[in-house]
């Protein structure tokens, strides 16, 4: 029951992503090193069944081209030259997958591959624009969705928020206090470029899509205290419970 609810949740997320990005499809596909697989997404269920029955996992250029890789992949970069790949592509387009696609692979510790894919029917120039506009965000979304799937698959509570490092805490605290990036960099005595690295790292650990969201999450999780030195204080503060 709980499991079913969890699966539904992921399925809903792929639908939301599809609508948000205004694309034909969004699919999450997970494979173990020995070929076990599962997925969620907006493809026609008939295509999914057909894909599994035909063992397309073995010839799908997207799987072959993403396995053991960690860079984002535009499907046009893949090797579609074999007869099997050409037939597969024609079949996929016939089932409404689309003529364009973009996948981001995430490697698991034991050879697992998780892919967040979007596919669409459009011309090359529009797809170039789509990737250029959305690649960066897609990478982070793929990671966050993958974290969610893995925590649900393991039937446990969502992964606890990872500890932020001291620099990350300071950076988010200053941002939360309303300082601009230039000011924060100056306060921490680092360049704005380096500040950005700490902010990116904090966002990733917090599962936050933007900096505002990162600050809000860090406050919500009690990782940062905006508005004073309360964190350093050792007691006697009104309203502060004994620990």
């Amino acid at each position, binding site marked *: 029951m709980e499991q079913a609810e969890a699966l539904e949740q992921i399925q809903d997320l792929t639908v939301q992503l599809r609508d948000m990005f205004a694309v034909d499809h969004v699919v999450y596909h997970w494979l173990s090193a020995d070929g076990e697989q599962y997925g969620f997404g907006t493809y026609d269920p008939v295509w999914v069944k057909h894909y599994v029955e035909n063992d397309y996992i073995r010839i799908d250029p997207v799987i072959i081209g993403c396995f*053991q890789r960690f860079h984002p992949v*535009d499907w046009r970069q893949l090797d579609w030259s074999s007869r099997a790949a050409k037939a597969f592509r024609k079949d996929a387009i016939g089932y409404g997958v689309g003529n364009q696609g973009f996948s981001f692979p995430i490697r698991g510790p034991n050879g697992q591959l998780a892919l967040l894919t979007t596919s669409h029917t459009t011309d090359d120039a529009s797809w170039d624009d789509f*990737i*250029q506009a959305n690649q960066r965000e897609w990478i982070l979304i793929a990671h966050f969705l993958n974290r969610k799937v893995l925590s649900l698959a393991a039937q446990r509570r969502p992964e606890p928020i990872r500890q932020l490092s001291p620099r990350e805490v300071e950076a988010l605290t200053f941002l939360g206090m309303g300082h601009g990036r230039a000011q924060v960099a100056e306060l921490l005595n680092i*360049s704005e*470029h380096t500040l950005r*690295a700490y902010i*990116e790292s904090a966002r*990733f650990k917090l599962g936050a899509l933007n900096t505002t969201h990162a600050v809000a999450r860090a406050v919500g999780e009690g990782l940062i205290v905006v508005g004073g030195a309360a964190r350093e204080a050792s007691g006697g503060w009104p309203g502060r419970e004994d620990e």
Partner: protein
Amino acid sequence: MLRYIYGNDLARRPVLKHTMYRDRAVQFAERLHWAVTVDENGEEHDEYDAMNPLYVIWENADGTHGGSMRFLPTSERTMVNDHFSNLLNGERIESPYIWECTRFVLGQQATPRVAAAMMLAGGELMRAFSLTHLLGVFDPRMVRIYSMIGASPEVLGSAGTGRDKISVGLWPFRPEDRARVLRRAQVTSDQSEAWFDLSFGQSIQAMQKVA
């Protein structure tokens, strides 16, 4: 020419592979006396080579290794977070937008041009894959080389002194650096993009034009 090549594809280029690991042994074991492992073939490997990293390799005209470096995303296990977080006061940098760059090595006949080509390749990876930074580990000699080619990292922390000093630093993606690095590498923009496309299929053309 520059090649971008994942570890599991190196086997297809045995000469390039052997001469890269061999040059690494020369630089890190023989010259710098780092505590690295050199095998019976005179090659230096470590556990991160087993993680199928992405290598950027300058290939000499005769097919041998002229210079290289190794990339892994900091969203996975990395050498910096495993072994050098003491240089960062215990900070762990983790982001799919920040890749670590380790084992920067130059072949024994490498010219300054090769070092510049390596930096160019780092910039092309950042541009094509929407990275914000590269995070590197390097020795004092590399600091001089980076400065010479106009691509100095921001040092986040160091340990040791003199020859034994080792540092961790960040290179941010600055699109405006590209023209200068191309010039130092004596590579045209089209050449660089063509080499990238040869390795990755096709992609960088579609990303922002910066030079």
